[in-house]
């Protein structure tokens, strides 16, 4: 079982863009038709007395007041991708709203009202591009119809611009002046709604500044810990030092003696398995302010039963995992006969690749505010990627009906998958109930690195065969890593089909004999998903191995990749994976794996980076390409060694095909940031466990790159495309790491087989 693994939750693609048109007064009734899809409901307010502001709200995402104020609801969580701007931008463009005056409000967590709000898996734009266009277009049709009626002209002669309807004669009317007319108009038949031509868009496909830019730079933006409630107390928690540890007893006398400390509360933890959405066992100190709570926590005396994970050593497990890859594993994909290819090969390359545990290390540590109001209502403010899961987890933990939990979503100070898990939100709810007051639970950096849902460490072994004619004939990939599912179930010993579909079983190259195998391993900590998930280690191994194979065959790595992708065509993985390839939850017919699109990004990046040029002394380049989350990416990294032997990354080149690009500035920014993020994964970051405890406590131990170590220039080339849009949050990360490793090899003559490597 894979509980809530983001991209597996998607329903059929066609469900997502379905527009339900209820009769207008039925909205509240209709909203009980919960779907993962999109609801175009009606939310009319009654007209007020003359002069009072009235509102036209043709659906839950748009409302227009008689003062001509257009408000668009952002229902996905903002953690840095720009989604809080990009989706409203789509609505505004179809509507013809004056973008400079559009107000954006954040939706609370409510699946019945807003559909899927799980902001994960790089699928917000992919899933909501069409529905958001239809949302804006429906409102536009109604406004035009009202204006046309008023003017006694044909709607075809009207268009919208800057929050006005404009007639071909030049007559204009503000949206606000049509509110009284449209609010009683029946919703149009969805079949009658026409979307704008792509070429006429003024916002879609353009650089649009994020909505919150000014608030962020002036300190006004509200993140998780920034919510203040009257009478709010602050809690910090001493959690089980080893996953599964239980409190035997505790003495809170010294903690309660700290000025400002009001209460000490034990939290009952889930034990083993720890689960993805439950609080850990711990003892919370609740105080007037954060500092008092921290001091109180230091003074706690707790006796723990540490349980079976107290002997866990990650280096030892990694070595055992590596050994296991030398044996036969469970076959997860098979084509041809690899054994025969190996027997008849002229040359067999065999390499192993190791990658460590990684922590998300969002600069905002987890924090959440809960107000349990005594009458069975619990209101939450949290930086959550998945407000609906958080809402459900709180309802479960407090044994409340779902409708008694109100989930407000703040900005997220980074997410990367960490803030999908609602454990910290559940803590706040439990503690507010115990304290009978609003409570903010505040994690410290030490808490964050100790109790993360880590990206799993991994061992891989790849064998590649080359025959006497120099042909690349066989590929045998062994991969082993504790699975995400193991966090929820101790019987999950192999990576899931979903995790393998992230860069492993979707190996795209045209090799006649392929065998992909997995091995068993167990989880001794909480495993989660980190920006691009198992694509991180799979792309590292495959991208580095492909470079070695190209070298062994005497072919340039870019030409080699193009050659091995073969003819332009759609490729299938289901027949060779026993039907288990998941394609990020999308039907392969709707989102095919097209070798032509991949070749195009490779050719583009090679051209932009001037790949064939002779480089100056002390410089080297490396290449890799990797499709993830349905987005095609190729990457070239330039490395340089100065006279003192110091290595730097002066330039990075990306080419990306993500279909239609909605906010081109935010596409580029995701790639710029992705290169920086991946540089940390490749060169500085690792979590290791001894006696079940992570050994890195803060940013001195778990290092992420700083400005002096960062890649200096990052060039992002977006392929112009009218294909369906796909996400860009995660896809920049996977190909960067092997491209960097391959560049390092050219520079130093040494191949990289283990991350992080020291540059």
């Amino acid at each position, binding site marked *: 079982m894979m509980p809530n693994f983001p991209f597996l939750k998607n329903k059929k693609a066609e469900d997502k863009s379905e527009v339900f048109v209820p009769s207008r007064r039925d909205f509240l009734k209709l909203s009980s038709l919960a779907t993962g899809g999109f609801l175009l409901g009606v939310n009319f307010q009654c007209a007020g007395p003359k002069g009072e502001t009235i509102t036209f709200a043709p659906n839950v995402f748009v409302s227009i007041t008689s003062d001509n104020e257009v408000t668009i609801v952002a229902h996905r969580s903002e953690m840095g991708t720009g989604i809080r701007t990009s989706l409203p931008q789509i609505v505004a463009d179809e509507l013809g709203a004056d973008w400079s005056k559009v107000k954006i409000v954040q939706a609370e967590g409510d699946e019945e009202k807003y559909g899927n709000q799980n902001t994960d898996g790089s699928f917000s734009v992919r899933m909501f591009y069409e529905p958001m266009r239809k949302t804006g277009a429906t409102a536009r049709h109604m406004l035009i119809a009202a204006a046309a009626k008023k003017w006694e002209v044909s709607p075809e002669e009207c268009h919208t611009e800057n929050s006005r309807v404009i007639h071909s004669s030049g007559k204009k009317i503000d949206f606000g002046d049509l509110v009284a007319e449209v609010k009683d108009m029946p919703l149009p038949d969805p079949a009658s709604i026409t979307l704008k031509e792509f070429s006429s868009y003024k916002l879609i496909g353009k650089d649009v500044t994020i909505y919150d830019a000014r608030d962020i730079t002036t300190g006004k933006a509200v993140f998780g810990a920034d919510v203040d409630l009257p009478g709010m107390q602050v809690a910090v928690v001493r959690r089980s030092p080893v996953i599964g540890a239980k409190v035997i007893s505790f003495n809170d006398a010294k903690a309660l003696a700290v000025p400002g400390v009001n209460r000490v509360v034990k939290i009952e933890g889930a034990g083993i398995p720890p689960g993805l959405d439950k609080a850990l066992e711990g003892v919370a100190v609740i105080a007037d302010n954060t500092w008092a709570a921290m*001091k109180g926590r230091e003074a706690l005396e707790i006796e723990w039963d540490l349980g079976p994970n107290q002997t866990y050593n990650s280096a030892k497990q990694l070595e055992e995992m590596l050994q296991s890859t030398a044996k036969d594993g469970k076959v997860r994909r098979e084509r041809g006969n690899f054994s025969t290819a190996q027997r008849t090969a002229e040359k067999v390359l065999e390499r192993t690749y190791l990658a460590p545990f990684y922590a998300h290390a969002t*600069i905002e540590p987890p924090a959440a505010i809960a107000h349990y109001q005594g009458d069975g209502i619990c209101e939450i403010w949290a930086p959550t990627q998945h407000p609906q899961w958080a809402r459900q987890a709180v309802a479960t933990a407090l044994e409340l009906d779902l409708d008694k939990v109100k989930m407000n979503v703040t900005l*997220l100070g980074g997410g990367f998958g960490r803030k999908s898990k609602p454990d910290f939100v559940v803590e706040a709810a439990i503690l507010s109930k115990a304290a009978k007051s609003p409570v903010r639970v505040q994690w410290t950096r030490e808490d964050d690195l100790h109790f993360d849902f880590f990206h799993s460490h991994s061992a891989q072994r790849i064998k590649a065969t080359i025959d006497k004619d120099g042909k690349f004939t066989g590929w045998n990939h062994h991969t082993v890593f504790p699975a995400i599912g193991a966090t929820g179930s101790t019987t999950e010993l192999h990576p899931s089909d979903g995790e393998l579909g992230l860069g492993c079983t979707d190996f795209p190259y045209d090799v006649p004999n392929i065998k992909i195998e997995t091995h068993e391993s167990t989880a001794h900590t909480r495993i989660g998903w980190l920006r691009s998930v198992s694509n991180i280690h799979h792309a590292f191994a495959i991208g580095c191995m492909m470079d070695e194979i190209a070298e062994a065959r005497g072919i340039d790595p870019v030409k080699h990749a193009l050659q091995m992708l073969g003819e332009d065509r759609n490729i299938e993985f289901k027949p060779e994976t026993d039907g288990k390839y998941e394609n990020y939850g999308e039907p392969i017919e709707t989102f095919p794996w097209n070798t032509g699109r991949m070749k195009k990004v490779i050719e583009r990046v090679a051209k932009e980076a001037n790949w064939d040029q002779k480089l100056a002394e002390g410089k080297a380049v490396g290449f890799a390409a990797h499709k993830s989350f349905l987005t095609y990416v190729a990457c070239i990294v330039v490395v340089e060694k100065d006279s003192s032997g110091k290595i730097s990354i002066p330039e990075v080149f990306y080419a990306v095909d993500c279909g239609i690009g909605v906010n081109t500035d935010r596409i580029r920014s995701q790639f710029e*940031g992705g290169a920086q993020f991946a540089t940390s994964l490749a060169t500085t970051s690792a979590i290791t466990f001894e006696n079940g405890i992570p050994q890195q406590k803060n940013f001195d131990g778990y290092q992420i790159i700083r*400005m002096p170590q960062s890649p200096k220039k990052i060039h992002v080339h977006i392929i112009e495309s009218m294909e369906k849009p796909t996400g860009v949050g995660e896809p920049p990360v996977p190909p960067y790491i092997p491209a960097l490793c391959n560049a390092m090899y050219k520079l130093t003559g040494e191949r990289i087989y283990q991350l992080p490597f020291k540059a």
Partner: protein
Amino acid sequence: MEKFTISVNGKKQEVTADPDMPLLWVLRDLLSMKGTKFGCGQALCGACTVHLDDEAIRSCSTPISTVGSRKVTTIEGLDKEGQHPLQDAWVEHVVPQCGYCQTGQIMSAAALLKKSPNPSDAEIEESMAGNLCRCGTYNRIKEAILTASKAL
């Protein structure tokens, strides 16, 4: 607990606090000024950067008892209108992604520009090395500092 009077953004503020309480928590919890952020508590990430007089310091590791008569400037007080050349340049280059570290980044950059109005690349890198950004906005931060330095 002791009484302290500190100057924050030109305003005298009286607080009662444990003398060890870091300035960060005085600002956030006692004065409800939320623009200064908590990131690590150990002066390793720079999210909590404010100015003491003209110097950028890490408020998470500065006990209230050591502030004395020095003037505290936070992001809220960097510019009355929120339009310091750095803030404008930050918007122009659309620097922020999640935005959480950015107030600390701007305060570090502001201290740099006070000392060195036309900083070199190397100076920028050195001065900004104490501010982490997990989203990876370093390239645009550098561009925005260069733009602001021209506007000053």
